[in-house]
């Protein structure tokens, strides 16, 4: 059983709190991703799980045993570093077998495990080469091979794809997912790239300033974020935030965006939001894909409005349009044939069934 549990974990550097008390339960065989902007504490948390940083307060348990004071080599973990950290004077085979050699594993067993891992990662013909003879992607695979060979309780990945170019990153992402399907080991993966988080994770942990903002499946985080930070962090292009006022008029709830534009609150949400009418600092959150061109058939909860377009970005399969409401830059995704042009007015449709109402003072999604 290789579940990982964090209880009230704190990391303090001199006077600075890098991690301010996090609780997390990672189940066996789960692929969990810690994601957040730089400085949020995700790498520090990972390194505390690994034993490379001392835990200032709280407990970390691996497989049921508290490991606070246990040195890394006894925690039965394996780690893949951002810079691969391959031993430059050893060839690939020796790099991968180093951990086993230290445990005095018999040579036949080492060979079997290395060959097996090499096959999973498709690096069998690289076993004789030295790291400096390998490309970035190959080195990363060797680093993963080194981790697989140890057959640990937990895999730890510290931003492993950050050093690769964009195309290679996409490729390696898929590789990592495939490997996880074959080698069902609990994995804790750290990245700042939310696309990686969404595509790889069983569950995503969004961290910010040393605390966990939200934990959930990629879908949950995407469709039901609980804080403004998560709402704005997940999804690309990012969610639009439009300051608004909630008005109650003639028994109907409306959101006033500016003196010319107000949108009706969907009926399903009226009960939920009615108590917040008149509250200051409210923000409407709407993803770009829910601001589209008008189409012949109208669904309920869709509201059409006119807007002058500032900038048009043709992406091929869609076109991004940018316009301004209340000095906030808003992004919408329209069909390339919808005739969007910079400086021209355009009829747009907001799909409010996917709206989020956010209290800006607390940062929470209402």
């Amino acid at each position, binding site marked *: 059983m290789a579940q990982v*549990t964090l*209880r009230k974990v704190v990391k303090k550097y001199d006077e600075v709190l890098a991690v301010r008390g996090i609780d997390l339960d990672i189940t066996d065989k789960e692929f969990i991703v810690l994601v957040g902007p730089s400085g949020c504490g995700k790498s520090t948390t990972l390194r505390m799980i690994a*034993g490379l940083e*001392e835990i200032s307060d709280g*407990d970390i*348990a691996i497989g*049921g*045993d*508290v490991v606070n*004071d*246990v*040195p890394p080599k*006894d925690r039965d973990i394996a780690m893949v570093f951002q810079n691969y950290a391959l031993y430059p004077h050893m060839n690939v085979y020796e790099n991968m077998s180093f951990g086993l050699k230290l445990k005095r594993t018999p040579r036949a067993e080492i060979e079997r495990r290395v060959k097996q891992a090499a096959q999973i990662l498709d690096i069998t013909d690289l076993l004789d080469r030295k790291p400096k003879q390998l490309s970035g992607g190959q080195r990363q695979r060797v680093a993963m091979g080194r981790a697989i060979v140890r057959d640990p309780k937990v895999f730890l990945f510290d931003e492993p794809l950050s050093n690769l170019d964009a195309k290679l990153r996409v490729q390696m992402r898929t590789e990592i997912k495939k490997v996880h399907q074959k080698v069902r080991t609990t994995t804790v993966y750290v990245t700042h790239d939310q696309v990686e988080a969404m595509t790889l994770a069983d569950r995503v942990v969004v961290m910010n300033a040393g605390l966990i903002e939200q934990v959930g499946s990629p879908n949950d985080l995407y469709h039901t974020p609980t804080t403004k930070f998560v709402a704005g962090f997940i999804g690309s292009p990012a969610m639009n935030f439009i300051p608004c006022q909630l008005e109650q008029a003639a028994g109907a709830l409306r959101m006033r965006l500016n003196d010319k534009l107000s949108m009706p609150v969907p009926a399903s949400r009226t009960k939920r939001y009615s108590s917040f009418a008149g509250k200051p600092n409210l923000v409407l959150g709407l993803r770009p894909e829910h601001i589209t061109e008008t189409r012949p058939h109208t669904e309920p909860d869709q509201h059409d409005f006119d807007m002058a377009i500032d900038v048009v970005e043709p992406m091929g399969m869609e076109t991004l349009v940018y316009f301004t409401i209340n000095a906030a830059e808003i992004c919408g995704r329209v069909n390339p044939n919808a005739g969007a042009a910079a400086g021209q007015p355009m009829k747009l449709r907001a799909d409010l069934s996917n709206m989020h109402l956010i209290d800006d003072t607390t940062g929470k999604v209402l």
Partner: protein
Amino acid sequence: MANAAIAAGTARPVKYRSMSRDRRWAMRWSYFFLVLFVIFFLTPPLYMLITSLKSSGEISAAINPWWVYDPTLSNYKELLGQNQYLVFFRNSALVSVCVVIITMLISVTAAFALARMKFWGSATLAMGVFLTYLIPDTLLFIPLFKMFAFVRDTTGIELLNHWWTLIIIYPTLTVPFCTWIMIGYFASIPKELDEAALIDGATWMQALTKIFIPVAIPGIIAATIFAFTVSWAQFLYPLAFTTSTDQLVLPVGIVTTLIKGDVFNWGQIMTGALLGAAPPLIIYAFLMDYYIAGLTAGATKG
């Protein structure tokens, strides 16, 4: 409590070492051994200092030699009072300063040419410079001795037994390594600076003086310190080439004059030695980082 829940799940006994306890013991042992090594390295100079503060009576007494019971500055006064020691000091200082100037002039210009201006044979010359550094003074002093005698016989210029002859020879010890250090520093300055200066209308000499030297100042300081230290500490060449007391430099002077026959005036010898070691030590105390940078640059910047 969650902690209890975690702890209760533990079935196997704890058999691994505590990480934080290991780290603390590692620190304690580190400092312990460091202190031992520091004692080993600093004992001789400390003992020099201790002895220099003793009167000759105390030195020959059968008491604890590691402590000064009756400190006195008489050794210092005697040594600095007599003209001879001051002459040694003066000779050493003059020689060292002149050698440093000459060395830096030759090294910096040559290093710039070798590092920056690719000309035919520059790579071999750089390697050659390095190799000559490996030809020791213990091999060259005899032929040099003969060469000086030859110059005297043919031109009448007396090179032997003059302290200023050393100014001609010492650069052979300092220039190769200093050039090598400077080549390393100059080579690490991006080439675009060259081109920018040229386009801005500078001549090579202006580029050298206005752009490179300011940027290479750390290397220059390191090389200067090295040149000074080597010149000051030289023993073999002055021992071979200078004999009259007033021509001696400090290291030779102390060793030869203070040991008169069988009588060793240890108080004065140690004082003399300590004062002789003082200039490099003082420079080191203030410019330690440049010192070390010079050393490591030489070997690592290949």
